[in-house]
């Protein structure tokens, strides 16, 4: 085979200097860098209420990726077009220390390109899934609504950031204790009231719990062209829940968003298309229309996202 290197090249060295060959070499043995199968995902851990200065907070961990989400509530006058609706404003912050390159990619204080894309996608997911009924954030219709600033800080990055960010965002919304704000119509001022001792804080009702699963597409290894067609490398590889290393060699990274057992919100590819709400069957029906990559969206991915969503639900219900 052509994947031959000098004996001096240890696997660790190969990982650094030729990441694609490293993954290909492992793929020949049907295994990934961290020992997972191609279609296996890393477990999701979620802890709620991790930051006490935020009204709602959650820490999500997927493998080595750690994100902390915190929600702060502010008030303002609503838009005339939606007088009874508040807002949830998610922003992803990729800290300089989260990965070896993150601190160098973005000048301090500015979100990197990746963070901007993730913030947008997260906002789309939260909005389109209709997870929060915005009328719950109304203090006084037409006068005062709450705005939930949801800041998601990535402190350690090893792939699957969108999934972790979404889980943490949902967790922080679930944990959010809405402040007891009263609006005085005579003076037009809103004021924060102390919660009566022992009273349960008002929490948001989540209409749905969205969860996503990332996948990466590794192209067929050129160096292995001519191999037997049953080799795992003869076709493009679909890696479920890729790590940062695997994301680097993937030509396409996307994610599937699930809202329920057979309810799909859609999926995105690196280009950022969101295919509108559809069922898994509908997703697969798009296939003949030329989405070659879609053929890779096999049942494993569909099952995977359902399983991860189940895990999220379980962790949320622990609270």
């Amino acid at each position, binding site marked *: 085979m052509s994947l031959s290197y000098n004996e001096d090249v240890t696997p660790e060295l190969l990982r650094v200097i030729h990441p694609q060959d490293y993954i290909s070499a492992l793929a020949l043995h049907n295994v990934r860098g961290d020992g997972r199968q191609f279609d296996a995902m890393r477990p999701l851990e979620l802890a709620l209420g991790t*930051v*006490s*200065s*935020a009204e709602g*907070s959650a820490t999500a961990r997927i493998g*080595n990726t*750690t994100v*902390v989400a*915190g*929600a*702060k*509530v*502010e*008030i*303002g*006058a*609503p*838009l005339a077009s939606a007088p009874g609706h508040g*807002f949830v*404003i*998610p*922003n992803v*912050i990729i*800290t*300089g*220390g*989260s*990965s*070896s390159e993150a*601190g*160098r990619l973005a000048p*301090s*204080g*500015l*979100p990197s390109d990746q963070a*901007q894309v993730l*913030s*947008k996608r997260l*906002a789309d997911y939260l909005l389109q899934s209709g997870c929060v009924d915005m009328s719950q954030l109304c203090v006084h219709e037409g006068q005062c*609504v709450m*705005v939930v*600033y949801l*800041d998601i*800080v990535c*402190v*350690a*990055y*090893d792939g699957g950031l969108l999934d972790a960010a979404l889980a943490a965002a949902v967790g922080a919304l679930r944990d959010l204790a809405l*402040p007891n*704000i009263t609006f005085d119509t005579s003076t037009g*001022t*809103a*004021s*924060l*009231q*102390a919660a009566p001792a022992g009273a349960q804080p008002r929490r948001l009702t989540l209409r749905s719990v969205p969860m996503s699963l990332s996948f990466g597409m590794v192209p067929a290894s050129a160096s292995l062209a001519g191999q037997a067609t049953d080799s795992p490398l003869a076709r493009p590889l679909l890696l479920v829940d890729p790590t*940062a290393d695997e994301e680097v060699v993937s030509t396409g990274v996307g994610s599937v968003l699930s809202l329920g057992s057979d309810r799909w919100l859609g999926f995105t590819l690196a280009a950022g298309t969101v295919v509108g709400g559809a069922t898994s069957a509908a997703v697969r029906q798009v296939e003949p229309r030329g989405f070659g990559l879609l053929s890779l969206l096999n049942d494993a991915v569909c099952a995977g996202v359902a399983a991860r969503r189940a895990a999220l639900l379980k962790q949320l219900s622990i609270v």
Partner: protein
Amino acid sequence: MADKRRICAPIDTVPPVGNPRQPCTAASGRLGGRDAMAVRPIFLETDVNPQATGSSLLEMNGTKVICSVYGPRQSHRRQPFRDTGVIDVEVLTSPFAGTHRLAPGKNAQDGELAALVEQALLPSLRLDTFPKLSVDIYIVILENGGSVLPAAINCATAALASAGIPMNDLAIACNTVSIAASAPASGADQSQQSLWIDPCLEEEASPDLAGSMLVTYMPTLNETSLMISTGSAPPTQVTEAFHTCLAGCLSLHKTIVECLTRDA
């Protein structure tokens, strides 16, 4: 002007005004009846970020700081040749760390904190062992529950130790606030001050606050790398606060060393 790099609310918002946390006073004593010389319990864990050369998470009752250290590696800044290494400190306060949401983006306080952390850490490092290279230190303040600068310094020194960066000593920081006994009318009674070590947010916001002091101390070298005071006091009281901080540094040093050796 709308910030196109971030998602902004379509309306102007303000934090709700109401009863914030009650600050501690000289009369009320410390929050939760803490002893004047007692440090909050510390939770310190290293290697929380496997991507980094070294990292640590420090929690002290409502103050949470994460630090990741990379390097020594080539500096990404253009700089003239040096025969010693440099360190590059960046501090980011998360928007939800304080009582009110912090507008995102670089704020002046983070820059000042970074400069002070750098000054505190520099003498503890053997910069001559990595000429031309840079050690990048990224600190994220997840939650500010008071004494955030000493927490950032202690977290960073633990992360540097776990990263295996050659060091002279651990740089341990501790701060105190001095609370004037509530007899401001007399004025002459200036010697009545009580020193509260490792203050929390409610204690830092005390209306009886007469001053504060932060000291970074390297116990093995017996050297102080950073010292800052605020407020005005006679030299004897400043010296007293200094010695109190040193005592606090020594007790924190013991705890941090225990945590580091346990994790190693």
